[in-house]
Protein backbone atom coordinates (compact mmCIF):
# COMPACT_ATOMS: atom_id res chain seq x y z
CA UNK A 1 0.00 0.00 0.00
CA UNK A 2 1.45 3.32 -0.98
CA UNK A 3 1.24 6.18 1.40
CA UNK A 4 0.70 9.68 0.16
CA UNK A 5 3.46 12.13 0.82
CA UNK A 6 6.15 9.49 1.27
CA UNK A 7 9.15 9.23 -1.00
CA UNK A 8 8.99 5.70 -2.47
CA UNK A 9 12.82 5.63 -2.67
CA UNK A 10 13.16 5.67 1.11
CA UNK A 11 12.37 2.39 2.88
CA UNK A 12 9.41 2.56 5.24
CA UNK A 13 10.50 3.68 8.68
CA UNK A 14 8.98 2.79 11.99
CA UNK A 15 5.40 4.00 12.38
CA UNK A 16 5.17 6.42 15.28
CA UNK A 17 1.42 6.94 15.04
CA UNK A 18 -0.96 4.61 13.26
CA UNK A 19 -4.67 5.33 13.44
CA UNK A 20 -7.18 3.39 11.48
CA UNK A 21 -10.86 4.22 11.31
CA UNK A 22 -10.41 6.56 14.28
CA UNK A 23 -13.64 7.96 15.69
CA UNK A 24 -13.96 10.24 18.69
CA UNK A 25 -16.79 12.15 20.33
CA UNK A 26 -16.66 15.27 22.45
CA UNK A 27 -19.71 15.85 24.63
CA UNK A 28 -21.65 13.35 22.57
CA UNK A 29 -20.85 15.15 19.31
CA UNK A 30 -18.80 13.19 16.75
CA UNK A 31 -15.56 15.08 16.10
CA UNK A 32 -13.49 12.44 14.33
CA UNK A 33 -15.49 10.37 11.89
CA UNK A 34 -13.20 7.62 10.65
CA UNK A 35 -9.64 8.90 10.34
CA UNK A 36 -6.85 6.81 8.82
CA UNK A 37 -3.41 8.26 9.28
CA UNK A 38 0.06 6.82 9.70
CA UNK A 39 3.00 8.99 10.65
CA UNK A 40 6.49 7.53 10.38
CA UNK A 41 9.69 8.37 12.19
CA UNK A 42 11.46 11.42 10.83
CA UNK A 43 8.41 12.97 9.20
CA UNK A 44 7.34 16.57 9.72
CA UNK A 45 3.58 16.55 9.39
CA UNK A 46 1.17 19.44 9.71
CA UNK A 47 -2.38 18.63 10.72
CA UNK A 48 -4.45 21.37 9.15
CA UNK A 49 -8.04 22.39 8.76
CA UNK A 50 -10.58 24.99 9.74
CA UNK A 51 -11.52 25.67 13.34
CA UNK A 52 -13.69 22.82 14.57
CA UNK A 53 -12.45 20.39 11.92
CA UNK A 54 -11.05 18.09 14.62
CA UNK A 55 -7.31 18.89 14.40
CA UNK A 56 -6.65 19.15 18.13
CA UNK A 57 -8.91 16.19 18.83
CA UNK A 58 -6.93 14.12 16.34
CA UNK A 59 -3.55 14.76 17.98
CA UNK A 60 -5.01 14.22 21.43
CA UNK A 61 -6.54 10.94 20.26
CA UNK A 62 -3.23 9.90 18.68
CA UNK A 63 -1.65 10.35 22.13
CA UNK A 64 -4.47 8.52 23.89
CA UNK A 65 -5.45 11.64 25.84
CA UNK A 66 -9.04 11.13 24.75
CA UNK A 67 -10.53 7.70 24.11
CA UNK A 68 -11.61 6.56 20.66
CA UNK A 69 -15.25 5.62 20.23
CA UNK A 70 -14.32 3.50 17.24
CA UNK A 71 -11.29 2.33 15.29
CA UNK A 72 -7.80 1.80 16.67
CA UNK A 73 -4.69 3.84 17.22
CA UNK A 74 -1.16 2.83 18.08
CA UNK A 75 1.87 4.64 19.45
CA UNK A 76 5.09 3.01 18.31
CA UNK A 77 3.07 -0.13 17.63
CA UNK A 78 1.33 -0.20 21.03
CA UNK A 79 -2.14 1.00 22.01
CA UNK A 80 -1.76 4.19 24.11
CA UNK A 81 -3.18 2.54 27.24
CA UNK A 82 -0.38 -0.03 27.21
CA UNK A 83 2.34 2.30 25.94
CA UNK A 84 5.22 2.68 28.41
CA UNK A 85 8.00 4.58 26.60
CA UNK A 86 6.48 8.00 27.17
CA UNK A 87 9.93 9.58 27.22
CA UNK A 88 9.87 9.16 23.44
CA UNK A 89 6.98 11.67 23.20
CA UNK A 90 7.15 15.40 23.80
CA UNK A 91 3.68 16.95 23.93
CA UNK A 92 3.31 20.70 23.57
CA UNK A 93 -0.24 21.71 24.50
CA UNK A 94 -2.00 24.68 22.97
CA UNK A 95 -1.30 26.96 25.88
CA UNK A 96 0.40 27.06 29.21
CA UNK A 97 -2.06 26.23 31.95
CA UNK A 98 -1.59 28.63 34.83
CA UNK A 99 -3.74 26.50 37.12
CA UNK A 100 -4.79 28.03 40.40
CA UNK A 101 -2.23 30.79 40.21
CA UNK A 102 0.65 29.39 42.22
CA UNK A 103 3.68 30.88 40.45
CA UNK A 104 6.26 28.64 38.77
CA UNK A 105 9.59 29.75 37.39
CA UNK A 106 10.49 29.13 33.78
CA UNK A 107 13.15 26.68 34.94
CA UNK A 108 10.67 24.73 37.08
CA UNK A 109 8.29 24.28 34.18
CA UNK A 110 11.04 23.37 31.71
CA UNK A 111 12.64 20.95 34.19
CA UNK A 112 9.30 19.17 34.57
CA UNK A 113 9.76 18.05 30.96
CA UNK A 114 12.29 15.51 32.28
CA UNK A 115 9.63 13.72 34.33
CA UNK A 116 9.22 10.79 31.94
CA UNK A 117 12.94 10.09 32.22
CA UNK A 118 13.19 10.42 35.99
CA UNK A 119 12.65 7.84 38.69
CA UNK A 120 10.91 8.47 41.98
CA UNK A 121 13.17 9.39 44.91
CA UNK A 122 16.10 10.09 42.59
CA UNK A 123 17.17 13.72 42.63
CA UNK A 124 17.71 15.48 39.33
CA UNK A 125 20.90 14.18 37.68
CA UNK A 126 23.63 16.14 35.92
CA UNK A 127 22.14 14.93 32.62
CA UNK A 128 18.75 16.32 33.68
CA UNK A 129 20.22 19.70 34.49
CA UNK A 130 22.25 19.84 31.29
CA UNK A 131 19.20 19.01 29.14
CA UNK A 132 17.15 21.70 30.89
CA UNK A 133 19.91 24.24 30.35
CA UNK A 134 20.20 23.35 26.65
CA UNK A 135 16.44 23.65 26.21
CA UNK A 136 16.44 27.08 27.86
CA UNK A 137 19.27 28.27 25.62
CA UNK A 138 17.59 26.89 22.50
CA UNK A 139 14.42 28.91 23.04
CA UNK A 140 16.38 31.97 24.15
CA UNK A 141 15.08 32.12 27.72
CA UNK A 142 18.19 31.07 29.65
CA UNK A 143 18.68 34.54 31.14
CA UNK A 144 15.10 34.60 32.38
CA UNK A 145 15.02 31.11 33.90
CA UNK A 146 14.14 32.43 37.34
CA UNK A 147 11.21 34.56 36.18
CA UNK A 148 7.67 33.36 36.84
CA UNK A 149 6.00 31.99 33.70
CA UNK A 150 2.85 33.91 34.59
CA UNK A 151 4.63 37.17 33.78
CA UNK A 152 5.47 36.17 30.19
CA UNK A 153 3.70 37.11 26.97
CA UNK A 154 1.80 34.47 25.01
CA UNK A 155 4.69 33.95 22.60
CA UNK A 156 7.21 33.59 25.40
CA UNK A 157 4.94 31.12 27.21
CA UNK A 158 4.82 29.10 23.99
CA UNK A 159 8.62 29.04 24.00
CA UNK A 160 8.54 27.72 27.56
CA UNK A 161 6.19 24.94 26.52
CA UNK A 162 8.48 23.99 23.66
CA UNK A 163 11.50 24.12 25.95
CA UNK A 164 9.69 21.76 28.33
CA UNK A 165 9.28 19.26 25.49
CA UNK A 166 12.88 19.80 24.33
CA UNK A 167 14.17 19.13 27.85
CA UNK A 168 12.72 15.62 27.72
CA UNK A 169 14.81 14.88 24.58
CA UNK A 170 12.01 12.88 22.96
CA UNK A 171 12.03 11.25 19.53
CA UNK A 172 8.67 12.67 18.58
CA UNK A 173 7.16 16.09 19.16
CA UNK A 174 3.44 16.69 19.11
CA UNK A 175 2.59 20.39 19.06
CA UNK A 176 -0.91 21.80 19.24
CA UNK A 177 -0.99 25.15 17.41
CA UNK A 178 2.51 26.25 18.43
CA UNK A 179 2.15 29.39 16.30
CA UNK A 180 -1.21 30.57 17.62
CA UNK A 181 -1.00 33.93 19.35
CA UNK A 182 2.77 34.02 18.94
CA UNK A 183 4.54 37.26 17.99
CA UNK A 184 6.61 37.38 14.81
CA UNK A 185 9.89 37.25 16.71
CA UNK A 186 8.90 34.10 18.61
CA UNK A 187 7.56 32.59 15.36
CA UNK A 188 10.94 32.95 13.66
CA UNK A 189 12.64 31.55 16.75
CA UNK A 190 10.29 28.58 16.78
CA UNK A 191 10.79 27.92 13.06
CA UNK A 192 14.56 27.87 13.58
CA UNK A 193 14.21 25.44 16.49
CA UNK A 194 11.98 23.14 14.47
CA UNK A 195 14.40 23.21 11.56
CA UNK A 196 17.13 21.88 13.85
CA UNK A 197 14.85 19.13 15.12
CA UNK A 198 13.95 18.12 11.58
CA UNK A 199 17.64 17.99 10.67
CA UNK A 200 18.27 15.78 13.70
CA UNK A 201 15.69 13.39 12.28
CA UNK A 202 13.04 13.94 14.94
CA UNK A 203 9.42 13.25 14.15
CA UNK A 204 7.22 16.32 14.38
CA UNK A 205 3.45 16.45 14.26
CA UNK A 206 1.99 19.90 14.57
CA UNK A 207 -1.49 21.27 14.46
CA UNK A 208 -1.65 24.47 12.47
CA UNK A 209 -4.31 26.71 11.10
CA UNK A 210 -1.81 28.15 8.65
CA UNK A 211 1.84 27.32 8.17
CA UNK A 212 3.41 30.77 7.95
CA UNK A 213 7.18 30.57 8.46
CA UNK A 214 6.97 26.77 8.89
CA UNK A 215 5.93 26.33 5.26
CA UNK A 216 9.36 25.30 3.92
CA UNK A 217 9.84 22.72 6.71
CA UNK A 218 6.60 20.83 6.29
CA UNK A 219 6.80 17.91 3.89
CA UNK A 220 3.34 16.57 4.43
CA UNK A 221 0.02 18.11 5.32
CA UNK A 222 -2.97 16.16 6.58
CA UNK A 223 -6.04 18.34 6.08
CA UNK A 224 -9.17 17.62 8.07
CA UNK A 225 -12.68 18.82 7.36
CA UNK A 226 -15.62 17.78 9.49
CA UNK A 227 -13.67 15.02 11.16
CA UNK A 228 -12.39 13.25 8.05
CA UNK A 229 -9.11 13.52 6.15
CA UNK A 230 -9.69 15.43 2.91
CA UNK A 231 -6.08 15.82 1.83
CA UNK A 232 -2.91 13.95 2.69
CA UNK A 233 0.21 14.92 0.81
CA UNK A 234 2.55 17.83 0.17
CA UNK A 235 1.13 21.05 1.55
CA UNK A 236 -0.83 22.99 -1.05
CA UNK A 237 0.72 26.45 -1.34
CA UNK A 238 -1.86 29.13 -0.74
CA UNK A 239 -2.70 30.93 -3.99
CA UNK A 240 -5.00 33.83 -4.74
CA UNK A 241 -7.88 34.10 -2.36
CA UNK A 242 -6.61 30.97 -0.56
CA UNK A 243 -3.76 33.09 0.70
CA UNK A 244 -6.06 35.58 2.34
CA UNK A 245 -5.94 35.54 6.09
CA UNK A 246 -9.03 34.04 7.59
CA UNK A 247 -9.65 31.85 4.61
CA UNK A 248 -10.68 28.34 5.59
CA UNK A 249 -8.66 25.95 3.54
CA UNK A 250 -11.04 23.77 1.55
CA UNK A 251 -9.27 21.32 -0.67
CA UNK A 252 -10.79 20.21 -3.99
CA UNK A 253 -11.14 16.65 -2.62
CA UNK A 254 -13.36 17.97 0.12
CA UNK A 255 -17.11 17.55 -0.05
CA UNK A 256 -18.39 20.60 -1.90
CA UNK A 257 -19.10 23.51 0.41
CA UNK A 258 -22.59 24.94 0.37
CA UNK A 259 -21.54 27.87 -1.79
CA UNK A 260 -19.15 27.10 -4.65
CA UNK A 261 -15.59 28.38 -4.26
CA UNK A 262 -15.99 30.44 -7.43
CA UNK A 263 -18.93 32.48 -6.23
CA UNK A 264 -17.69 32.71 -2.69
CA UNK A 265 -16.37 36.15 -1.91
CA UNK A 266 -14.21 36.35 1.19
CA UNK A 267 -15.46 39.01 3.51
CA UNK A 268 -13.13 41.12 5.64
CA UNK A 269 -10.81 38.87 7.59
CA UNK A 270 -12.13 38.08 11.07
CA UNK A 271 -10.38 39.82 13.91
CA UNK A 272 -8.69 36.88 15.55
CA UNK A 273 -7.77 33.49 14.32
Amino acid at each position, binding site marked *: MSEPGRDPEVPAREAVFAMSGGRADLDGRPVLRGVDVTIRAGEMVAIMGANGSGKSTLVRALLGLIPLSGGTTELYGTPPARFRDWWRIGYVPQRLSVG*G*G*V*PSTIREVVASGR*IARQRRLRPASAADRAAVERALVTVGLADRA*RDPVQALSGGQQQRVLIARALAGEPDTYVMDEPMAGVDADSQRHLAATLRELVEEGKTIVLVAHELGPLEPLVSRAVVLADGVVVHDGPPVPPVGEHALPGHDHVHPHAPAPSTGPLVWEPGPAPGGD
Partner: protein
Amino acid sequence: MLDLLLQSSIMQRALMAALLVGLTAPAVGTFIVQRRLALLGDGIGHVALTGVALGFLTGTAPVLTAIVVSVLGAMLIELVRERGRTGGDVALALLFYGGIAGGVLLIGLSDTGSNSTLMSYLFGSITSVTEQDLWVIAGLAAAVLGVVAVFGRELFVLCQDEEVAKASGLPVRFLSMLIAVTAALTVVVAMRVVGLLLVSALMVVPVAAAQQLTRGFRATLLAATAFGMVSTVGGLSYTMYVDVAPGAAIVILALAGFAIALTIGRFVRRSRTRESIS
Protein backbone atom coordinates in the same frame (compact mmCIF):
# COMPACT_ATOMS: atom_id res chain seq x y z
CA MET B 1 5.23 33.91 82.45
CA LEU B 2 5.88 32.49 78.99
CA ASP B 3 8.48 30.12 80.45
CA LEU B 4 5.95 28.85 82.90
CA LEU B 5 3.44 28.24 80.14
CA LEU B 6 5.97 26.49 77.96
CA GLN B 7 6.77 24.15 80.78
CA SER B 8 3.24 23.00 81.18
CA SER B 9 2.89 19.79 79.23
CA ILE B 10 -0.54 20.78 77.92
CA MET B 11 0.93 23.82 76.25
CA GLN B 12 3.92 21.90 74.94
CA ARG B 13 1.66 19.39 73.28
CA ALA B 14 -0.54 22.14 71.91
CA LEU B 15 2.48 23.94 70.46
CA MET B 16 3.82 20.76 68.88
CA ALA B 17 0.44 20.04 67.32
CA ALA B 18 0.18 23.63 66.06
CA LEU B 19 3.64 23.46 64.53
CA LEU B 20 2.92 20.19 62.74
CA VAL B 21 -0.35 21.48 61.37
CA GLY B 22 1.21 24.77 60.30
CA LEU B 23 3.82 22.78 58.40
CA THR B 24 1.60 20.14 56.82
CA ALA B 25 -1.55 21.94 55.74
CA PRO B 26 0.10 24.59 53.51
CA ALA B 27 2.46 22.00 51.98
CA VAL B 28 -0.49 20.01 50.67
CA GLY B 29 -2.41 23.22 50.12
CA THR B 30 0.10 24.47 47.53
CA PHE B 31 -0.71 21.53 45.26
CA ILE B 32 -4.43 21.78 45.96
CA VAL B 33 -4.59 25.50 45.18
CA GLN B 34 -2.63 24.98 41.95
CA ARG B 35 -5.07 22.23 41.00
CA ARG B 36 -7.98 24.68 41.49
CA LEU B 37 -9.38 22.62 44.34
CA ALA B 38 -9.11 25.29 47.03
CA LEU B 39 -12.44 24.23 48.50
CA LEU B 40 -11.57 20.52 48.59
CA GLY B 41 -10.46 20.85 52.21
CA ASP B 42 -13.80 22.38 53.15
CA GLY B 43 -15.63 19.52 51.52
CA ILE B 44 -13.55 16.90 53.30
CA GLY B 45 -13.92 18.82 56.56
CA HIS B 46 -17.70 18.64 56.32
CA VAL B 47 -17.60 14.93 55.57
CA ALA B 48 -15.10 14.30 58.36
CA LEU B 49 -17.65 15.53 60.90
CA THR B 50 -19.78 12.48 60.14
CA GLY B 51 -16.67 10.40 60.80
CA VAL B 52 -16.12 12.03 64.18
CA ALA B 53 -19.75 11.47 65.11
CA LEU B 54 -19.54 7.82 64.05
CA GLY B 55 -16.67 7.48 66.49
CA PHE B 56 -18.77 8.79 69.36
CA LEU B 57 -21.72 6.65 68.38
CA THR B 58 -19.73 3.42 68.15
CA GLY B 59 -17.34 4.13 71.00
CA THR B 60 -14.33 4.14 68.67
CA ALA B 61 -11.65 6.82 68.74
CA PRO B 62 -13.13 9.73 66.74
CA VAL B 63 -9.79 10.38 65.04
CA LEU B 64 -9.77 6.90 63.54
CA THR B 65 -13.34 7.05 62.26
CA ALA B 66 -12.64 10.56 60.98
CA ILE B 67 -9.69 9.22 58.99
CA VAL B 68 -11.74 6.42 57.45
CA VAL B 69 -14.75 8.56 56.57
CA SER B 70 -12.79 11.56 55.27
CA VAL B 71 -10.54 9.37 53.11
CA LEU B 72 -13.65 7.71 51.64
CA GLY B 73 -15.25 11.14 51.20
CA ALA B 74 -12.15 12.51 49.47
CA MET B 75 -12.07 9.56 47.07
CA LEU B 76 -15.75 10.09 46.31
CA ILE B 77 -15.13 13.79 45.66
CA GLU B 78 -12.25 12.90 43.32
CA LEU B 79 -14.44 10.44 41.41
CA VAL B 80 -17.14 13.09 41.01
CA ARG B 81 -14.51 15.59 39.84
CA GLU B 82 -13.05 13.17 37.33
CA ARG B 83 -16.40 12.04 35.99
CA GLY B 84 -17.98 15.18 34.86
CA ARG B 85 -17.78 18.83 34.23
CA THR B 86 -21.56 19.12 34.43
CA GLY B 87 -23.37 18.71 37.72
CA GLY B 88 -20.17 18.04 39.59
CA ASP B 89 -20.44 21.05 41.87
CA VAL B 90 -24.02 20.19 42.85
CA ALA B 91 -22.96 16.63 43.65
CA LEU B 92 -20.16 18.03 45.82
CA ALA B 93 -22.54 20.41 47.57
CA LEU B 94 -24.87 17.51 48.39
CA LEU B 95 -21.94 15.63 49.86
CA PHE B 96 -20.97 18.61 52.03
CA TYR B 97 -24.46 19.10 53.45
CA GLY B 98 -24.81 15.39 54.02
CA GLY B 99 -21.53 15.38 55.93
CA ILE B 100 -22.50 18.19 58.31
CA ALA B 101 -26.10 17.07 58.81
CA GLY B 102 -25.03 13.46 59.28
CA GLY B 103 -22.43 14.50 61.83
CA VAL B 104 -24.82 16.61 63.89
CA LEU B 105 -27.48 13.91 63.74
CA LEU B 106 -25.17 11.08 64.79
CA ILE B 107 -23.64 13.10 67.64
CA GLY B 108 -27.17 13.82 68.86
CA LEU B 109 -27.92 10.10 68.84
CA SER B 110 -24.80 9.11 70.79
CA ASP B 111 -24.68 9.04 74.61
CA THR B 112 -21.20 10.47 74.96
CA GLY B 113 -21.37 13.27 72.42
CA SER B 114 -22.83 16.66 73.34
CA ASN B 115 -23.00 20.10 71.84
CA SER B 116 -19.72 20.98 73.46
CA THR B 117 -17.93 18.01 71.89
CA LEU B 118 -19.47 19.01 68.58
CA MET B 119 -18.15 22.54 69.01
CA SER B 120 -14.70 21.27 69.92
CA TYR B 121 -14.46 19.42 66.61
CA LEU B 122 -16.04 22.18 64.54
CA PHE B 123 -13.76 24.89 65.90
CA GLY B 124 -10.89 22.93 67.40
CA SER B 125 -9.78 22.30 70.95
CA ILE B 126 -6.04 22.31 70.79
CA THR B 127 -5.55 22.49 74.55
CA SER B 128 -7.27 19.13 74.99
CA VAL B 129 -4.70 17.36 72.81
CA THR B 130 -3.50 14.26 74.67
CA GLU B 131 -0.15 12.59 74.25
CA GLN B 132 -1.82 9.87 72.21
CA ASP B 133 -3.45 12.50 69.99
CA LEU B 134 -0.07 14.08 69.46
CA TRP B 135 1.38 10.75 68.27
CA VAL B 136 -1.47 10.32 65.81
CA ILE B 137 -1.00 13.89 64.56
CA ALA B 138 2.74 13.37 64.19
CA GLY B 139 2.22 10.10 62.31
CA LEU B 140 -0.28 11.65 59.91
CA ALA B 141 1.93 14.68 59.37
CA ALA B 142 4.88 12.40 58.56
CA ALA B 143 2.73 10.50 56.06
CA VAL B 144 1.57 13.72 54.39
CA LEU B 145 5.07 15.21 54.17
CA GLY B 146 6.37 11.85 52.89
CA VAL B 147 3.88 11.97 50.03
CA VAL B 148 4.96 15.51 49.15
CA ALA B 149 8.63 14.51 49.25
CA VAL B 150 8.27 11.32 47.20
CA PHE B 151 5.63 12.38 44.68
CA GLY B 152 6.16 16.16 44.65
CA ARG B 153 7.74 16.22 41.20
CA GLU B 154 4.93 14.21 39.65
CA LEU B 155 2.24 16.12 41.54
CA PHE B 156 3.70 19.38 40.22
CA VAL B 157 3.21 18.20 36.63
CA LEU B 158 -0.27 16.87 37.43
CA CYS B 159 -1.39 20.11 39.06
CA GLN B 160 0.08 22.13 36.21
CA ASP B 161 -1.61 20.30 33.34
CA GLU B 162 -3.35 16.96 33.58
CA GLU B 163 -3.03 16.18 29.86
CA VAL B 164 0.69 16.83 29.89
CA ALA B 165 0.94 14.54 32.91
CA LYS B 166 -0.88 11.86 30.95
CA ALA B 167 1.31 12.37 27.89
CA SER B 168 4.35 12.03 30.16
CA GLY B 169 3.16 8.59 31.21
CA LEU B 170 2.37 9.59 34.80
CA PRO B 171 -0.23 7.52 36.66
CA VAL B 172 -2.76 10.34 36.60
CA ARG B 173 -5.63 8.56 38.35
CA PHE B 174 -3.39 7.27 41.12
CA LEU B 175 -1.82 10.71 41.65
CA SER B 176 -5.23 12.40 41.69
CA MET B 177 -6.43 9.95 44.34
CA LEU B 178 -3.19 10.43 46.22
CA ILE B 179 -3.74 14.19 46.41
CA ALA B 180 -7.34 13.72 47.58
CA VAL B 181 -6.37 11.18 50.23
CA THR B 182 -3.44 13.29 51.41
CA ALA B 183 -5.80 16.24 51.75
CA ALA B 184 -8.13 14.06 53.81
CA LEU B 185 -5.32 13.07 56.16
CA THR B 186 -4.35 16.71 56.49
CA VAL B 187 -7.89 17.61 57.44
CA VAL B 188 -7.79 15.07 60.26
CA VAL B 189 -4.38 16.33 61.40
CA ALA B 190 -5.64 19.90 61.51
CA MET B 191 -9.05 19.11 62.94
CA ARG B 192 -7.97 19.25 66.58
CA VAL B 193 -6.06 22.48 66.10
CA VAL B 194 -8.32 24.76 64.05
CA GLY B 195 -11.51 22.74 63.82
CA LEU B 196 -13.22 21.19 60.81
CA LEU B 197 -14.84 24.41 59.66
CA LEU B 198 -11.53 26.27 59.47
CA VAL B 199 -9.27 23.42 58.33
CA SER B 200 -9.31 24.53 54.74
CA ALA B 201 -8.18 28.03 55.69
CA LEU B 202 -4.80 26.65 56.75
CA MET B 203 -4.45 24.86 53.41
CA VAL B 204 -5.33 27.92 51.36
CA VAL B 205 -4.57 31.20 53.15
CA PRO B 206 -0.82 30.67 53.72
CA VAL B 207 -0.47 29.66 50.04
CA ALA B 208 -2.41 32.72 48.91
CA ALA B 209 -0.15 34.86 51.10
CA ALA B 210 3.07 33.21 49.93
CA GLN B 211 2.30 33.50 46.22
CA GLN B 212 2.10 37.28 46.52
CA LEU B 213 5.80 37.33 47.29
CA THR B 214 7.32 34.37 45.43
CA ARG B 215 8.25 33.63 41.84
CA GLY B 216 8.42 29.85 41.84
CA PHE B 217 6.48 26.80 42.96
CA ARG B 218 9.07 25.42 45.37
CA ALA B 219 9.57 28.86 46.88
CA THR B 220 5.81 29.23 47.32
CA LEU B 221 5.58 25.86 49.03
CA LEU B 222 8.38 26.71 51.45
CA ALA B 223 7.12 30.23 52.14
CA ALA B 224 3.59 28.90 52.67
CA THR B 225 4.77 26.42 55.30
CA ALA B 226 6.65 29.23 57.03
CA PHE B 227 3.51 31.40 56.94
CA GLY B 228 1.50 28.46 58.22
CA MET B 229 3.78 27.74 61.18
CA VAL B 230 3.98 31.40 62.18
CA SER B 231 0.19 31.61 62.03
CA THR B 232 -0.52 28.48 64.06
CA VAL B 233 2.11 29.12 66.72
CA GLY B 234 1.37 32.86 66.82
CA GLY B 235 -2.38 32.35 67.02
CA LEU B 236 -2.02 29.75 69.75
CA SER B 237 0.32 31.96 71.77
CA TYR B 238 -2.18 34.80 71.59
CA THR B 239 -4.82 32.59 73.18
CA MET B 240 -2.55 32.10 76.18
CA TYR B 241 -3.27 35.71 77.10
CA VAL B 242 -6.73 36.23 75.70
CA ASP B 243 -9.48 33.70 76.10
CA VAL B 244 -10.57 33.10 72.50
CA ALA B 245 -10.82 29.96 70.37
CA PRO B 246 -7.32 29.15 69.05
CA GLY B 247 -8.66 28.13 65.64
CA ALA B 248 -10.19 31.54 65.06
CA ALA B 249 -7.07 33.37 66.30
CA ILE B 250 -4.86 31.29 63.99
CA VAL B 251 -6.97 31.90 60.91
CA ILE B 252 -7.36 35.63 61.59
CA LEU B 253 -3.60 35.88 61.98
CA ALA B 254 -3.10 34.04 58.68
CA LEU B 255 -5.53 36.38 56.96
CA ALA B 256 -3.68 39.38 58.38
CA GLY B 257 -0.48 37.86 56.97
CA PHE B 258 -2.20 37.56 53.60
CA ALA B 259 -3.23 41.23 53.66
CA ILE B 260 0.33 42.30 54.47
CA ALA B 261 1.79 40.01 51.78
CA LEU B 262 -0.68 41.36 49.26
CA THR B 263 0.38 44.94 49.97
CA ILE B 264 4.09 44.17 49.88
CA GLY B 265 3.67 42.07 46.74
CA ARG B 266 1.87 44.88 44.91
CA PHE B 267 4.58 47.30 45.89
CA VAL B 268 7.43 44.99 44.84
CA ARG B 269 5.82 44.14 41.51
CA ARG B 270 5.15 47.78 40.72
CA SER B 271 8.74 48.79 41.39
CA ARG B 272 9.91 45.80 39.33
CA THR B 273 7.80 46.89 36.36
CA ARG B 274 9.12 50.44 36.72
CA GLU B 275 12.65 49.05 36.71
CA SER B 276 12.12 47.10 33.52
CA ILE B 277 10.50 50.09 31.78
CA SER B 278 13.20 52.60 32.63
